[in-house]
């Protein structure tokens, strides 16, 4: 579904990603792990289109997306969350989610005659999604009133409502309590059973082991290892680079 071919990206003198290549299969959960500064989020940002690679090519569903703007990549089906929740902070949960749900609301003439109230079907869909992720809040709540854990759930709901075929989650369980972590784990398993393709950055190895079909390990901007969690997490070079264990 997604293929990175010899991707490199530098920021000034720092080479964040160098000659990185890997592929992601459809209907699988692929985890991207690695020490801080390994280039994981940069890879996410390159795939989303926040940065353009200095070198190399990115293919999504066999289409080269190197030169596509962010919004076109989203419309191709790439949806993502952020390491630290980013929200439309002056808007309600419902408004935030309606923006994710509606595809053509940036078209002025088409939307000019429509009222801001979502129609019943769209509002129902939002409530269903909030129930699905376990976000128990009044939809009219301003998003900044959400707690950290609720923001993580909100992030997931928004990424799911955005019309997509490929879901990228940047540290979905970072800093959340064990109960919420288990909830998110079950949610991702449910999504996988529905055929979702998920690409996730995560540091929690138990979480990765329990959900991922494939693990890609990055170190210093390059892919260090790739394979099943059992194989990768017992790889000597991975244990040395990531977990700091000298074998």
């Amino acid at each position, binding site marked *: 579904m997604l293929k990175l071919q010899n991707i490199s990206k530098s920021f000034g003198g720092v080479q964040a990603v160098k000659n990185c290549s890997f592929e992601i299969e459809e209907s699988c959960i692929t985890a991207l792990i690695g020490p801080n500064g390994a280039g994981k989020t940069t890879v996410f940002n390159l795939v*989303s289109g*926040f940065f353009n690679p200095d070198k190399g090519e990115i293919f999504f569903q066999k289409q080269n997306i190197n030169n596509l*703007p*962010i*919004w076109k990549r*989203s*419309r191709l089906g790439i*949806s*993502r969350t*952020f390491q630290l929740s*980013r*929200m*439309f*902070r*002056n*808007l309600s949960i419902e*408004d*935030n989610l*309606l*923006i*994710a749900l*509606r*595809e053509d*609301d*940036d*078209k*002025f003439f088409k*939307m*000019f*005659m*429509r*009222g*801001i109230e979502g129609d019943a079907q769209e509002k129902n869909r939002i409530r269903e999604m909030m129930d699905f992720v376990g976000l128990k809040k009044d939809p009219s709540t301003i998003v900044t009133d959400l707690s950290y854990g609720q923001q993580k759930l909100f992030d997931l709901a*928004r990424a799911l409502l*955005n*019309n997509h075929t490929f879901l990228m989650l940047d540290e979905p369980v970072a800093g959340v309590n064990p109960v919420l972590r288990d909830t998110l784990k079950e949610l991702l398993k449910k999504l996988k059973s529905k055929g979702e393709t998920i690409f996730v950055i995560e540091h929690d190895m138990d979480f990765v082991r329990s959900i991922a079909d494939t693990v890609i390990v990055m170190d210093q901007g390059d892919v260090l290892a790739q394979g099943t969690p059992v194989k990768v997490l017992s790889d000597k070079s991975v244990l040395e680079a990531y977990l700091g264990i000298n074998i």
Partner: protein
Amino acid sequence: MFPFLIYILTLVCIYAIIVMSLNLAMGYTGLVNFGHIGLFGIGAYTSAILTTKFDWPFVFAILSAGILCAIIGALLSIPSRKIKDDYFALLTLGFLFVTGAIFINWTDMTRGTLGIRGILRPEGFTEPNSFLILTFIAALVTFFILEKVTKSPFGRVLEAIRDDELVAESLGKNIDRAKMTAMTLSGFFVGIAGVLMAHFIRFINPASFWLDPLVVALAAVVIGGLASLRGSILGVVIVFAVSESLRFLSLPSTMIGPMRVILFMIVLLVVILFRPKGIIGRADLD
């Protein structure tokens, strides 16, 4: 007293259009456009030149001015793709300086600092009372159109862009097109306000479109509240009430100007400190 009230109410209606259109760009879309008053001036000069030099009828002049300002507004939005936030505000301030320089130096058309005199009011609206009705209708139409825009799903996308344009784009929104649309509409309406001002005062010069009206418009947006059209109208009313109330105090004439600025700043400071969203605004100043 009565003619003075009509004069003030007419100015309030014109400024309401300026401030509502500025709020569309600044409060709803997050594009701080200091060049707004430059567009106001372009609207005024376009209509003044077309009606006094080329004898165009008022209707064609107002439409041409609105369309020209809409186009320039659209062009002004293009740099916002790369230049963000404070830097965009500085760029638009530069645009205001450029328009000021054009008004002063393109003497063949603008008569430079001498300004353009003898701008006639449109037929049927030559009296102050009837011109007030015209400006009131224009303000009302502006309000209803902008209310419809901002209360539509498109308006919500503009607010999303204001809050976090990268996230809005990552949700599939063509933010460049949306920003351009907002600036086009904003430009159109402020151009119309410029035309009304030129035909109301019947004399324009470069000083009419400089920093003073910009300060009034920005203060009204902040006091009334970002992302609120009703707030914009309220902001204009407060700004005019504060500024004109000094006329009724027995102050020496040399004191009125400085006192007006001092009062203005006090109101602005109080609002920013105690109500960062403005009186009825929906977005904060961050």
